[in-house]
């Protein structure tokens, strides 16, 4: 009885404790066994891949004696400085190329782009920020058509951020869009994006490895490239030289596509690359980047640049001889023209001599009247449809233009032989030839009508012919068969003004 009573008392004592305990607490917390802090000690910094270029067969090639000229555009607010390009420029120099920076000519007094493109073998445009004018695009398009090489480099890290253009607002200019204005004629365009790879990268998601290469001289011996901030490029007709793997994505779309970061145009004259950093130190020494740079240098200096008359005065490949033929009498009057030509050539760094016995390997400028019997004029025999007049009154037959009156016409013909280049300056008289020469000396060949390697210029006047009698002996006859194409255009025959009456009526 007593025991039961004690049990009951204990039970009653515990009951409220139990009730309250269960009211609040229904069990014990068990910590999850899986949760643990990261093993920070095990993490390691990614190490860049070493330069895989073995014996540098590319960078130690013999110096090219031709000294090809590579132009670097610096007229479009280009977002780089040349110190960054030092390794690349040094490599170009080692390969015999001469680098010229194209700056605003009105600022520097240097030659304008159109003149430089006449002698350059390549034009390099990096991260431009101001648009290319249609004129410039046409010039470069023509440059590429003539075998010049165009390298365009865009880089997503080189966009211009103009933070405080307006207070607390941001002005953003994508240089990809600017570069597109230049590349449009070549069916190449940049995407306004950046590429990344979150799974396999070189230390950062935007440092992308590339292992897929098209078969091309530019991608020979490449097994791995690393671009440190690249954008993708599209082209329907061009060759995608370098493309990302499956895990390489564009910031614009996550769709799996073979994103190209380097494209070569169909004709091979234009290469567009979506990264600039790989040209700079230390990134040029990573993986096969240096090999790719060497290939790019080959691309820039090994183009087959064709030259035609529009490239005058940069049509000569060696020292130039201004031929003193038997038709030419050096006098005090024409000496000025000769010395001016010489000065103009020297100013451009071209050697020229005035001689009647040119060296066998010298390029020639031949000054001669149409009816000259100079031996060198035989070279013109190879030009189809070119027939020189045999006297003052005969007409001249010129390719593309047909027969034209020779009076007052200067003919410029460029003949490119295997061993030498000949430039003929021909007109009806030697005085007109010298006038024609002065046009060239002033670099005014653009004022001439040019078709391929034949140019027609106005030299002398149709009225200046020496017909063997004096003006006062001449009884003007308005039926005189004189045709001036310019006057004819202005005043058709029916509308010819009445001649001014003379005192004789």
């Amino acid at each position, binding site marked *: 009885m007593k025991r039961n009573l004690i049990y009951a008392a204990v039970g009653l*004592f515990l009951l409220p404790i139990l009730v309250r305990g269960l009211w609040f607490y229904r069990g014990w*917390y068990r910590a999850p066994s899986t949760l643990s802090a990261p093993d920070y000690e095990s993490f390691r*910094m990614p190490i*860049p891949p070493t330069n895989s270029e073995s014996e540098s067969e590319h960078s130690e090639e013999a110096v090219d004696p031709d000294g090809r000229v590579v132009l670097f555009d610096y007229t479009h607010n280009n977002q780089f400085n040349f110190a960054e390009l030092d390794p690349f420029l040094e490599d170009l120099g080692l390969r015999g190329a001469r680098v010229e920076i194209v700056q605003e000519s009105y600022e520097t007094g240097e030659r304008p782009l159109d003149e430089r493109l006449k002698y350059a073998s390549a034009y390099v445009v990096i991260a431009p920020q101001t648009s290319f004018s249609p004129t410039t695009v046409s010039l470069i398009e023509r440059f590429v058509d003539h075998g010049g090489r165009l390298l365009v480099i865009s880089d997503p890290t080189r966009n211009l951020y103009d933070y405080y253009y307006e207070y*607390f607002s941001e002005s953003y200019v994508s240089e990809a869009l600017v570069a597109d204005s230049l590349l449009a004629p070549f069916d190449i365009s940049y995407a306004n994006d950046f590429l990344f790879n979150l799974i396999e990268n070189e230390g*950062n998601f935007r440092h992308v490895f590339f292992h897929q290469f098209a078969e091309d001289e530019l991608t020979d011996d490449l097994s791995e490239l690393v671009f440190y901030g690249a954008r993708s490029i599209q082209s329907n007709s061009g060759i995608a030289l370098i493309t990302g793997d499956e895990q390489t994505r564009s910031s614009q779309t996550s769709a799996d596509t073979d994103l190209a970061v380097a494209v070569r145009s169909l004709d091979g004259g234009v290469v567009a690359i979506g990264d600039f950093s790989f040209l700079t130190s230390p990134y040029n020494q990573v993986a096969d980047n240096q090999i790719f740079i060497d290939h790019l240098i080959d691309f820039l200096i090994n183009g087959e640049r064709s030259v035609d008359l529009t490239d005058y005065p940069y049509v000569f490949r060696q020292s130039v001889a201004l031929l003193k033929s038997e038709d030419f009498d050096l006098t005090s009057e024409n000496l000025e023209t000769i010395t001016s030509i010489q000065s103009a050539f020297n100013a451009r760094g071209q050697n020229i001599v005035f001689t009647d016995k040119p060296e066998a390997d010298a390029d020639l400028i031949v000054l001669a009247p149409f009816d000259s019997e100079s031996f060198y004029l035989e070279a013109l025999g190879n030009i189809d449809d070119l027939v020189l007049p045999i006297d003052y009154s005969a007409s001249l037959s010129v390719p593309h233009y047909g027969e034209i009156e020779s009076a007052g016409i200067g003919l410029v013909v460029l003949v490119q032989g295997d061993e030498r280049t000949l430039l003929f300056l021909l007109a009806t008289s030697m005085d007109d030839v010298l006038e024609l020469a002065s046009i060239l000396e002033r670099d005014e060949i653009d004022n001439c009508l040019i078709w391929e390697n034949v140019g027609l210029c106005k030299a002398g006047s149709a009225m200046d012919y020496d017909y063997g009698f004096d003006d006062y002996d001449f009884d003007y006859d308005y039926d005189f068969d004189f045709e001036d194409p310019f006057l004819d255009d202005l005043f058709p025959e029916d509308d010819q003004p009445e001649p001014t009456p003379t005192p004789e009526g």
Partner: protein
Amino acid sequence: MSDTLPGKNWKTSRTIIIFLLVSLLAGIAFSFLIPRPLIGIIRLDNAIYFESANALIQQIEYARENSRIRAVLLVLNTPGGTVVDTEAVYLELIQLQAQKPVVAYVQGMAASGGYYLSAAANEIYSGPSSIIGNVGVIVTLPEDPFIVEDIFTTGPYKMTGAARDTTLREIDVIKQGFYQAVVSGRGERLKLDAEGLLSGQTWLASEALQNGLIDGLGSLSEALDHTAKLARIGHYEAVELQDQIYYDLIYSYGFFSETSEGVITPFPNKAGIYLLYVPSNARRLP
């Protein structure tokens, strides 16, 4: 025949009843010694930096040492902050979680370092339109090493701390830690692969739920109930732990930079490595 006096019986019964009643009352009295369980609420409505992290750590320590606090609800509205302070708070939360359940509730934003902290929680809940994720590291690279004429150092990186390239690779190490923290914290609930998680994307809470970054959507009180369930307690009381600690503000400076006009920007006021979400349109301030 035993004759029992009615009076004696009553007396005996009365004694028994009193005895039992006293026992019951003693039990009731003793039961009041069982404390009502508490859920400690730790709020972070700021960036994670020296001051806010110290306050958080003090609250976590208080929760760990106070046996009445059976669980902690971490209420987050933060874009993240410095790496060292985020990691420090994270490691304290991991220790706390070994003893008591920790639940995170996102009330606005748990981005970057904010999500790093929530990865230390047993479960994560969120308001429907909160911003979650932004897993990754952001750094302003140091200047290229340079020398000047009138300052001499004993090493090339004495003035810059490291080469730019080294700094860039260092943040990958920090990223690995962040990634491991999320993978470890979320376990099999995480439906994103490494590529998706490390993209740095922010998600709306509803998307984050689909991706396994959080466990549910709801209100703060629902999150408290979930916390209580994890702690296996009922009829709890929620207490704000920031009211329980004394925090001496030795330094008082903000994390974000301010313009000369007093406008607070989303950028930290000094360069460094951060687990921080900076909105891409941040420069377009009203």
